[in-house]
């Protein structure tokens, strides 16, 4: 059975606002969260480092899923609040974990490299590398690790 959504009664109402006005209202509301978003991203990067350090000890699926969860949240917040390199790096990490899927295929050393690079990226770059270069480097690391071309200690 199909029933018209009650929400449809909210469209084309005389006292309403335009699409552009509604979207602008939402963007303005989002802008008010910018400072809190910065703190959330910093906390996310810290949590990611901690989770990767834990995974180096446990090397189990639960640890891997925890890192994936943090990476996805970091990706979402960074993407929403215009931190494109942080968003891209977090997404690369999440994709890498999804591709490898199992702990035995996901070496802790690679995830530690991700965590260190994302940490450096959050601080605005490190070792003469800009955030954009770090993000590109992580993408390269992920593709090489997936094809088995990374020498690990």
């Amino acid at each position, binding site marked *: 059975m199909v029933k018209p959504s009650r929400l449809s009664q909210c469209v084309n109402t005389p006292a309403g606002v*335009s699409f552009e006005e509604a979207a602008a209202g939402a963007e303005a*509301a989002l802008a008010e969260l910018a400072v809190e978003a910065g703190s959330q991203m910093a906390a996310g990067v810290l949590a990611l480092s901690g989770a990767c350090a834990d995974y180096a000890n446990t090397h189990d699926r639960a640890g891997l899923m925890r890192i994936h969860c943090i990476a996805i949240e970091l990706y979402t917040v960074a993407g929403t609040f215009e931190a494109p390199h942080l968003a891209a790096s977090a997404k690369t990490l999440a994709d890498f974990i999804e591709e490898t899927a199992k702990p035995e295929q996901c070496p802790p050393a690679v995830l530690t490299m991700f965590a260190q690079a994302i940490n450096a990226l959050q601080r605005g770059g490190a070792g003469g590398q800009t955030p954009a270069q770090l993000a590109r480097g992580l993408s390269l690391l992920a593709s090489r690790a997936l094809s088995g071309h990374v020498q690990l200690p």
Partner: protein
Amino acid sequence: MIPDSVRLNFSTARVGIVDPSKFALTITRSVVFGFGFREIFEYSSAPMALARLKMAPVDLVVCDPYPNVSENLQALAALRDPRYGDTAFAPIIVTTGSVSLELMQAARQAQVDCVLAKPFSAAALLERILWTTKRPGMRDADPPPTVHAAVETGVIEIW
């Protein structure tokens, strides 16, 4: 492109937001508040929403099912039960930062209206909300609009 002649007033509509992340809940809440929604209910999981929505029906559900995708989508499917009154007919938009074929298939089986990849822009969510206000048959005749992702890496999937 939505014409200026379309006027929106969501002040009397009720929306339920489901997200395990507190800050993601805050983001979505701010966005829908900016659209004009004033009755906004937040839940950390779809099963929790299920328990509450019998008593307080909503007109729209926006849900991120990750990481307990299966459990949350089962709960969303249960929302289509007539016992949930008007909520059974409310549009459901799934948002996710982790899009996969499995999720898309499971979401379709759960009878959600569309899936919107995170991070999304306010305009992208509003376009989807407007699209879901059309009855299913009408949506077929009017394909969803092109969506501009908030960041380059964003992917939008919809049916």
